[in-house]
């Protein structure tokens, strides 16, 4: 009997060692650093859905390009008319640089490109449930993270990782006292993320509802953010996604915000 129990204990120990959870930092670094092309073009649609059924849509052009030590993003709104011509640019620096991101906003009515504070990203992105922080590249060193297990999300085997901000500054910047992310083990994609407030209440949830492989790169083509308290939802849809199209540096200079991004400025796609 004693030998059977000892055998079972040793077997269990071996089994645990063989499938030990990976280091959460490594998993998230793999997510952060996974190949995503030298640049990206997408026609993006933002849906804002209210509990009463009222829906609003925003169409924008999404441009992103990698530069040494940073990547730059230009968003240009095409419709509806009350946001047409609004432009947003950001420079997101690699974590190793230890620099705050930089952001600029352009409102066509005021004809000024204005820098906006990047230290508080809790604000709503164009009235949606996505905050500005939700559009940022994943940052690993801003959190202490732990793998808490595995779960299946939409048929994909995922690591479940709990993340706690390392400082009050990060909580102020993000508005989140805790997040939990579900990471596709094979594709290194975040498929779900939940957000908790200071009272420990789960108040927001993000789900990647459509994932496809584009030019060999697994891409989240649709994600939905749900406010669990109000019931409001917003969906970001990425259409006509192209990687490595050779976006010109002029697409990431401030003057493009004033001139506007138009199809005629972009490479022709096959």
């Amino acid at each position, binding site marked *: 009997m004693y030998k059977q129990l000892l055998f079972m204990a040793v077997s269990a120990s071996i089994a645990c060692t063989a499938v030990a959870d990976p280091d959460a930092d490594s998993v998230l670094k793999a997510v952060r650093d996974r190949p995503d092309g030298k640049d990206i073009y997408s026609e993006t649609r933002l849906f804002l859905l209210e509990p009463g059924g009222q829906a609003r849509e925003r169409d924008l052009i999404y441009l992103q390009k990698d530069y040494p030590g940073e990547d730059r993003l230009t968003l240009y709104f095409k419709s509806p008319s009350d946001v047409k011509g609004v432009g947003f640019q950001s420079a997101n620096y690699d974590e190793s640089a230890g620099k705050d991101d*930089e952001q*600029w906003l352009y409102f066509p009515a005021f004809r000024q490109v204005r820098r*906006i*504070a990047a*230290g*508080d990203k809790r604000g709503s992105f164009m009235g949606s449930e996505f905050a500005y922080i939700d559009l940022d590249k994943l940052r690993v060193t801003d959190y202490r993270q732990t793998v808490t297990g595995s779960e299946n999300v939409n048929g994909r085997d995922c690591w479940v990782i709990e993340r706690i901000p390392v400082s009050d500054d990060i909580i102020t910047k993000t508005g989140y006292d805790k997040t939990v992310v579900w990471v596709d083990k094979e594709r290194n994609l975040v498929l779900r993320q939940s957000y908790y407030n200071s009272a420990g209440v789960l108040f927001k949830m993000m789900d990647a509802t459509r994932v496809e492989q584009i030019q060999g790169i697994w891409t989240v083509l649709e994600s939905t953010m749900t406010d669990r308290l109000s019931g409001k939802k917003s969906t970001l849809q990425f259409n006509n996604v192209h990687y490595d199209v050779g976006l010109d540096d002029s697409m990431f200079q401030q003057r493009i915000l004033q001139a506007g991004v*138009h199809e005629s400025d972009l490479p022709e796609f096959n």
Partner: protein
Amino acid sequence: MLDSRAVFKWVLGLMALLMQNVVWGHEFQGEVALRSVARIDGDESRLNYAGSRVQLRYEHHTRDFSIYSEGRFRWNGVFMGDDPYSQNAREAYEFSFDLREAFARLPVPGNFDLSLGWQQVVWGKADQLRILDQINPLDIREFVLLDMKDYRMPIPMVRLNGMVDKWETELLYVPTYTPMYFAEAGSEYAIPLIPDAPGLRELPSVQYDSIGQGASAGFRFSRAFQGLDIGIVGLYARDYQPVFSQSLGMDADGPYLGLREEHHRYFMAGANFEAPLGSSYILRGEVAYVPARTFMLQGIAEGNGLERHGEVTAMLALDYTYQDWVFSTQLMDRAIIDWHPGMMDEEHTPTFTVSAQGINLDGHLETRVFWATMPVTDDGSWLQIKNTYLFDDHWAASLVMDFLQGPKDGFFGQLKDRDRVGLEFSYRF
């Protein structure tokens, strides 16, 4: 002369067509609004605007060129029939049409763009203050109570924009002089430039119609550098603010002091910056130096009662972001170099503004509160509270309140009995 009524009917017909999304590969958008504004001043309260506004915008973009144009048509029913305003005001403001911009942009070799036509150009980073923002004149038929974007006047110009090394570069040339538009005498916000006093005569103003007299030119270089946005500008132009040369004369009524409106040339050199301070703050600054600007003297000591002095205008501002709100303060001062008590202007004219702008009710309510004061020169203050409720992407309602305070001879105080409340319903397409 443009028949405003005919234009209005044409615009209504075109809008009906455009709202059916008949695009033909071009971009149209517009706004229709019903607006009413009332003066709130006890016994003198009255409606001073009850009408509509139609704004249409057209853009067309190809790889070879882009076209931008926008026009605004306004009708004010208050000027129909008998009212307390002057005939001039009635004719000018019952129906009015103005261009907001109309220009073509073409790419030129070297990654530059050339823009030709009627344009608005904003330099600097100030809110509702003009330090470097000196390119375009202003239409102040409603004083300064509208957003500056709504009363900045487009002017014809040639503009070249591009990158030189890491600097965004802009060169512009304006061939003609367009004067500022002051409210018609006898209208709600009319401010006489010359007091109506015995012994004063307004002489015909100097005209600047030729290119040699009216042209202006400028440059701007800007870039983001080490976490800082910086800009450097230079402008050679004719002053939009008038000065009045003084001369003594005699007519049948006796001796008089003649005042002639003039707009003198000046050169401005300036710079601006924007820098993040900590996590939620942005610091903004602007400075403009004019080596020689024309100022008026109190009385004719020598010559024509005008004198040239250097001038420095500087502004420092701090913006604080908290979630969906931005709180800003700005402190600006205009200082005259080698000032003396014989000048009509004060040596220093500081202006302080505070504003809060944010979004509430899940993005449906936009609120802005703006307060400006000029306490040192006793010019009074202006408080504006504006709320815009967005029913959806098309329909909106705005409520705006303006309160002006101060001594009657102060900049804001001169219209202290013109406090107002306005309501507007609009549809955007």
